[in-house]
């Protein structure tokens, strides 16, 4: 199977955005950069004229003369690929948006693009200055959604975004949409996470490789996140948080909108509680998201794990009954330490269990198949 392709015109559009980035930065101010999605609706010529009338012509020619081969080489050098709106692998969700990017630059296994359907993707966003509560919820939500087969889309930012990614990457597929080139790890302290998502999931952006981060490019990537997923969940956001832009964009597209309730006296949860008051779906956990997206009653872990031998099933039952260390399992089942160790490691490898830094086992959401 061939990888996704992008036509030169669409790739030139992303180049144009990179060239115009400093000019857009000046125009799209106000509440930081919130006008950028509107600007990006414009055609090449109108956009250039709107943001940089003096140099518009010069920039347009500059981009127009970039040879086709150069466009592709630059992508290959950055170990990225591109998929434009004329390719059949272009994510379906983006086709709903009038201001969708012409081309998506990606990093990671391009075959995973096929799984990025609105019905199976959830965008999880929230404040960069998240509380412990928010982080914990984001991580669990990310993990449980990914474990039940959903694609978790987020923006790799500090706080909620990173926690959602971390949870999801442990259990399944996650997609990071960046406001800079896909080969730029921004924020830099998330480099390890960025690399891991690049290896196991997807990193997407509408900007060409090497482009830095601009204030306007974050609301711009929010519109991509909102369009990619069938539902957007805001985990924690203050009254005027940037993640509420994503929520607005999602609502504009007719996507489902969910919010995690927070304490009513917490400033950090002002925005999410406001969304709930405005009719957003209450998200208490992954099950609420699945109910909203797949219809009530469709339970999590619908894709059961591999079948278990009786000894492994007994070990799993022991862990479920509260034996959280290897020692406890060995005593509960009256087997040797070696046997218990082998069984636990096998269950961990099969995805039924996770083990903490201190050797405590916990059950994942993965369901056991009916025999």
């Amino acid at each position, binding site marked *: 199977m061939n990888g996704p392709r992008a036509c030169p015109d669409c790739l030139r559009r992303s180049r144009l955005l990179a060239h115009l980035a400093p000019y857009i930065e000046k125009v799209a101010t106000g509440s930081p950069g919130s006008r950028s999605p509107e600007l990006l609706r414009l055609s090449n010529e109108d956009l250039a004229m709107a943001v940089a009338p003096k140099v518009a012509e010069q920039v347009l020619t500059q981009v127009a003369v970039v040879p086709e081969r150069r466009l592709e080489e630059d992508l290959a050098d950055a170990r990225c690929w591109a998929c434009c709106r004329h390719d059949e692998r272009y994510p379906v969700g983006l086709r709903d948006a009038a201001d969708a990017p012409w081309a998506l630059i990606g990093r990671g296994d391009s075959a995973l693009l096929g799984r990025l359907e609105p019905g199976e993707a959830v965008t999880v966003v929230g404040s960069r200055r998240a509380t*412990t509560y928010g982080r914990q919820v984001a991580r669990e939500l990310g993990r449980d959604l990914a474990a039940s087969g959903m694609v978790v889309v987020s923006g790799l930012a500090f706080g909620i975004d990173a926690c959602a990614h971390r949870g999801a990457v442990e259990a399944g597929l996650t997609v990071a949409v960046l406001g800079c080139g896909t080969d730029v790890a921004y924020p830099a302290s998330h480099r390890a996470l960025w690399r891991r998502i690049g290896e196991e999931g997807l990193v997407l952006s509408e900007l060409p490789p090497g482009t830095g981060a601009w204030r306007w490019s974050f609301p711009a990537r929010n519109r991509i996140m909102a369009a990619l997923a069938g539902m957007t969940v805001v985990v924690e956001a203050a009254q005027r948080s940037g993640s509420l832009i994503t929520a607005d964009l999602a609502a504009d597209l007719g996507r489902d909108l969910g919010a995690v309730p927070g304490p009513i006296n917490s400033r950090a949860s002002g925005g999410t509680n406001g969304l709930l008051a405005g009719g957003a779906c209450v998200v208490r956990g992954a099950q609420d998201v699945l109910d909203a997206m797949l219809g009530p009653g469709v339970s999590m872990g619908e894709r059961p794990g591999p079948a278990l031998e009786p000894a492994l099933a007994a070990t799993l039952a022991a862990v479920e009954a509260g034996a959280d260390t290897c020692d406890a399992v060995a005593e509960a089942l009256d087997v040797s330490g070696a046997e218990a160790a082998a069984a636990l490691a*096998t269950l961990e*490898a099969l995805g039924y269990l996770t083990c903490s830094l201190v050797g405590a086992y916990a059950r994942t959401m993965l369901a056991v198949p009916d025999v």
Partner: protein
Amino acid sequence: MLATAQTFTLDGIAARPVRVEVDVHKGLPAFSVVGLPDTAVREARERVRAAMVNSGFQFPLHRIVANLAPASLRKAGPGLDLAIAVALLTASEQLTLGALPSLALVGELALDGSVRGVPGVLAIAEAARERGIAAIAVPEENGAEAALVEGVEVIPVRSLDQVAALADGEWAPERPEPMPLRLGSPGGADLADVRGQRHLRHALEIAAAGGHSLLMVGPPGAGKSLAASRLPSILPPLAAEEALEVARIASACGRLDGEAAGGRPFRAPHHTVSPAGLVGGGNPPSAGEATLAHRGVLFLDELCEFRRDTLEALRAPLETGWVTIARSGARRRLPCRFMLVGAANPCPCGRGEADPECSCVPLAVRRYQARLSGALADRIDVLAAVRQPSAEEMGGPPGEASAAVRERVVAARERQEGRLGPGRCNAEMSPAELRECRLDESAAALLADAYSRRRLSGRAHDRVLRLAQTVADLAGSASVDREQMAQALQLRRREES
């Protein structure tokens, strides 16, 4: 008149020869000691003077200069007293060592002329043999220790006048019985005391069999320290040469108990220990806990409470088996091949997050556990989650005794030595040797699966391979099967994701 005497001074754990030259000549009465003496050596003047007078000798009222050659070497400790006194007696013509031209003397003098024990006599006796010295006079209480060294005559002396009797040929002492050399672990600590706790026992056995470092995590009072202190008893017995090495270190650090020498040491420094206390240091450099634990177990209880720089200081020694202490004066290498065993609580309050009583906030738990994944943790292979033993286990029969476990460990070690060479174990396997591990197809598939799902880092992959090899060696199988690989995966230390 001029006279000389041969003695030794301790430099770290090695003995260096020192020649004491004493010159007595006319002038205002004075006694000076030159040649880089430390305070204890300089104070020898007073001890020597009193000891001589109280033993019935004359203290010459002349100008006395004692030179300690080589002058560039720093001399420490009171062990030079005896040699200075004998050289002074010879120089003042009160004693003739004519019959004993090649005699070295060590010992501290008491004011009444009796000779007190000093540290490091074992190393000194060995150094004397290497330099071809025929006989060595040592304090009587160190006689048994010096007698461990063959090929040098050992003269245990109790007092200064005994040396005079020896010189006159009036007294011919017998060679003392050498101190028994212990090859196993000292004391009656037995693994049978660890009741139940099968996983912990399993982890201890694997760690002992492959020389893997071990981290135990569990609530306070769950038996972590007990288990660690039993670890030396299941390690293979020391070779005689190794036991001598252990005894030499203990002797130089003044830690030799009277009954027996050698045996696998067990050291458990408190978590407030300084980097110098742990790996050695100071000026002049002295051995730290890491060196004292040579060939034995270094147990770091409350691993998370140790200062970060203290733990960092352990990294290089763990890797190389040597502590190198560089000072402006000298550079010293001290041996430290030990098994590292750490213990930690699962969270700051110690109960573990699963316990409903645990009141630790998640952030504090995360910070606490982050300390478990520092640079030192990189060197730890095995993780054992320890749990409070249940009432039935506590009241139940004792566990398998150390002797039985040790037999299996010895067999596993023999297999490793057959493959890797004498004295080596699986924990030290190089990447090239790792590639020669024989894995069953299913075991290789399990490892590859765990690796590709990113549950393992590259380093963790190698760690699992080492552990798996040890599990297979214990079972006596030629290649690693799936079950053994699964055990290794379970036992490996976890990393933060």
